[in-house]
């Protein structure tokens, strides 16, 4: 394959992961373990970085080992590879940022059972070369992260009047009644539903136009 072909292919992978086949509003995978940390932007950023790291590297590793993995135990092998990277993230967080590790609680460990990681390894990594598997994992994780960040920004701003812990002028003042519900669990469900609705409607409108 020549260079421009490879470029076009990676661009395609990027668009698929970020938009057309976005993990959250199109595939609806892996929302479980990360939705819980979207009440604060900082937690979300750390969680997303951890997810990008785990997803892209484990997709690449699964892809490198794909010729040596026996077909019938591949799920177990994939899980172990993912768990390996998650343990690295967990140990690093515990060593250098213990408060954050406490804030995230079990949710770092839960990346292992995050369906999007397993889903991408199974759907793409296991049957494609390492570089494109890495890119696929990377862009899917980014597509996942940007939606979560939107949710987190709204939840923290409306619920606490702050962003990244800094108070925002109007929203932290006395004129703004804080929407406590936004930082509580129902807020996360509602925000995710609204974001899914908006993005899906945009996609549907585009599809209609192209027909």
């Amino acid at each position, binding site marked *: 394959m020549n260079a421009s072909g490879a470029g076009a292919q990676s661009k395609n992978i990027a668009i698929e992961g970020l938009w057309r086949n976005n993990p959250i*509003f199109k595939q*609806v*995978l*892996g*929302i*479980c*373990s990360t*939705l*819980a940390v979207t009440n604060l932007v900082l937690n979300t950023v750390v969680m997303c970085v951890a997810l990008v790291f785990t997803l892209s590297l484990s997709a690449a590793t699964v892809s490198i080992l794909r010729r040596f993995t026996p077909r019938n135990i591949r799920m*177990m092998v994939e*899980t*172990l590879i993912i*768990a*390996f990277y*998650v*343990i690295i993230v*967990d*140990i690093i967080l515990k060593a250098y940022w213990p408060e954050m590790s406490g804030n995230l*609680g*079990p949710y770092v*460990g*839960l990346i*292992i*059972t*995050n*369906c999007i990681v*397993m889903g991408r390894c199974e759907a793409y990594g296991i049957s494609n070369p390492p570089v494109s598997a890495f890119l696929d994992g990377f862009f899917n994780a980014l597509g996942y992260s940007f939606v979560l960040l939107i949710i987190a920004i709204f939840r923290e701003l409306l619920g606490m009047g702050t962003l990244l812990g800094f108070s925002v002028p109007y929203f932290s003042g006395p004129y703004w009644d804080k929407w406590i*519900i936004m930082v*509580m*669990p*129902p*807020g*996360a*469900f*509602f925000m*995710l*539903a609204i974001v*899914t*609705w*908006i993005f*899906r*409607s945009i996609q*549907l409108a585009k599809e209609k136009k192209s027909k």
Partner: protein
Amino acid sequence: MNVAPQIWQAFVVCISAVFTQNILLSYFLGLCPFIGVSREIKSAFGLGLAVIFVMTSTCLLNWLAYHYVLEPLGLEFFRFILFIIVIAAFVQFVEMVIERYSPALYLRLGVFLPLITVNCAILGASLFMVIRSYSFIVTIGYGLGSGIGWFLAIIAMAGIRQKLANERIPQGLQGPGITLIIAGLMALAFIGFTGVLQGR
């Protein structure tokens, strides 16, 4: 060690895991099968029962594994892998037993068992149990309560979604969108239970 207060604590933890700290509605665990399998009550019921059973048993097994294997060896960081292996092995084992001895039950629950291995609620319950350092007896209550909580939530959701089947929903909101909104409303309702139990 005095057992009576522990049994009382297990009971309290169990009730709070069902209502005030529902593993699905306040910790978002097990959302993927919750959205995927809640289209009809029958399959939701089967999956829910399987979750109660597997969650209670794996919590106990993981408690034993963590406190008698990992802690003495100082290998606590290894728990993610060990828990996953315990869960996967247990589910596989149960599947074989059910298939051998009760084909009728296998027909009802069999398809759901593999799904459970990747259900984050199961692993999540085990991790919470470690983080909150529950004792063995309390863990029984916690595993059972979390399972029942998940079961209740998915049954309620399936019931609501069956009613929704004939309603007109905006196209972009169909499927996961409307399910999430209903889940939000349910979470809101469950917040009403806060304060039922003073002190967890």
